């Protein structure tokens, strides 16, 4: 004890007090500025509304050619309508690669084609070529009186223009 006290003469009192003061000040600074910074980040972070499922009319059934397809803009999003031997199927038309809108391009190999990086999807929405990592999400579709109705998943925009 004694020798330690001698080795660091007069270390003690004022030094320790200064150290504690520095510590308190730094902690207060970090907490204060950090708190402010989180508020600013929250300010910037958009409030993202939850997804909703809504049913929208998507034109007439006979607009979709046999074994072909069309891409329609429903205002709430793009939907690809594909006819597979008489069966009507609906997919999201937003490419699962990086978000371009696919277009109908019925061939033996694929039914939908994305021009951005050459992604290809078949009549099941499965990837048959190019870089997209996932199949296109499929939507429930119904035909009533020759009119097509698709149940799409939408997310309302944060702010409207």
């Amino acid at each position, binding site marked *: 004890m004694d020798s330690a006290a001698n080795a660091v003469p007069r270390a003690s009192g004022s030094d320790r007090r200064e150290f504690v003061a520095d510590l308190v000040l730094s902690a207060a600074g970090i907490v204060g500025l950090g708190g402010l910074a989180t508020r600013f980040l929250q300010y910037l*972070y958009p409030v993202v509304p939850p997804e909703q499922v809504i049913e929208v009319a998507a034109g007439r059934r006979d607009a979709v050619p046999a074994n072909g397809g069309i891409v329609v*803009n429903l205002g709430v999003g793009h939907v690809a309508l594909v006819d597979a031997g008489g069966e009507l199927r609906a997919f999201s038309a937003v490419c699962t690669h*990086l978000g371009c809108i696919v277009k109908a391009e019925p061939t033996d190999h694929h039914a939908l084609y994305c021009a*951005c990086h050459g992604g290809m999807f078949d009549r099941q929405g499965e990837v048959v070529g190019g*870089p997209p*990592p996932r199949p296109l999400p499929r939507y429930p579709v119904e035909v009533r009186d020759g009119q097509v109705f698709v149940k799409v998943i939408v997310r309302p925009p944060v702010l409207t*223009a």
Partner: protein
Amino acid sequence: MSLSALKTAVAERIPLPPGWRGKTLEEQLPIHLKTWIWALGGTPAVLFIVQVVTGVLLTFYYVAQPMHAYESVRQITFGVRFGWLVRGLHQAASQLMIVAVLLHMIRVFVTRGYRRPREVTWVIGVALFLLTLGLAFTGYALVYDQLSYWATTVGTNMIAEVPVVGPPMLYMLRGGADVNPQTLTRFYNFHIGVIPTIFVVLIAGHILLVRLHGVAALEGDRRADAYPFFPDHVLREAAVALVVLIAMVVYVTAVPPELGEKADPNLTPSHIRPEWYFFPSYRWLKIVPLQVGLWTSVAFVIGMFFWPWTDAVLERIVPGRRVGTFVGIGFWIVTLVLLLWEAFS
């Protein structure tokens, strides 16, 4: 008031430390700098000033709103007096900026100017390079024609693929889940506010470090001669800057800026393509799966940041063979091949 009295009066108001001229302006530079290729380091800085001036001018007419953005760019390009010149220069300088930064980086890379103790200068330089790309990307988005809109959609979507932090980062950048009216405002802000501010701070740091370290003698160059920074070197830089400026004005006058069709969120054009400097990554994304493309890009950026240390380790393992340089040249070749592949396909 006599001239010397004026000098004294100024010196009294702005008390620079004695000898400051010798330390700053008259610093002696190794003689190898006296070749034109070494006067390129200042070119990005000159171009940045061009961008600030023309950029500020553009803000006088540009409207960062989806409904009006395209129209306002049209106004600038075809309506406002000399609007074509201002926008053309801004566009030309942005392209040249990337060329200049790349040339500067290649020069530093080949001469290994990043080695101890200059690693931090390199790291800041890499950050500046990435910010330059960020400025180009956000600026391109503001034009709001078809290509610009879809390039923005595709470019930002990549972020969403990053696990965990990706989606929130994307929301933050876009101001929502999809590209929406907020996105343009955010991009505008990044383009004229956030990135330029960081940019200026980093440029200051970069130049400060370059000056503090002084210029390294070239490996293998035995000449001991030196020449002063001011006026000799400054004049050279100024000459290069002037040539670049004249070339840009001539170019813009001969090939005034154009404008594609207005952005249509409903229609992906059949031939979309980013600007040439994104060709390598664009082509890369076409030929590899998304996750591979993403992680190789991340690895590439990390690799660039840590290059000075990686190179030092390689040097220690295989001394004197400059393995690092070959690795680097390999990367440059791959990048060039991808670029040309996309350009001619």
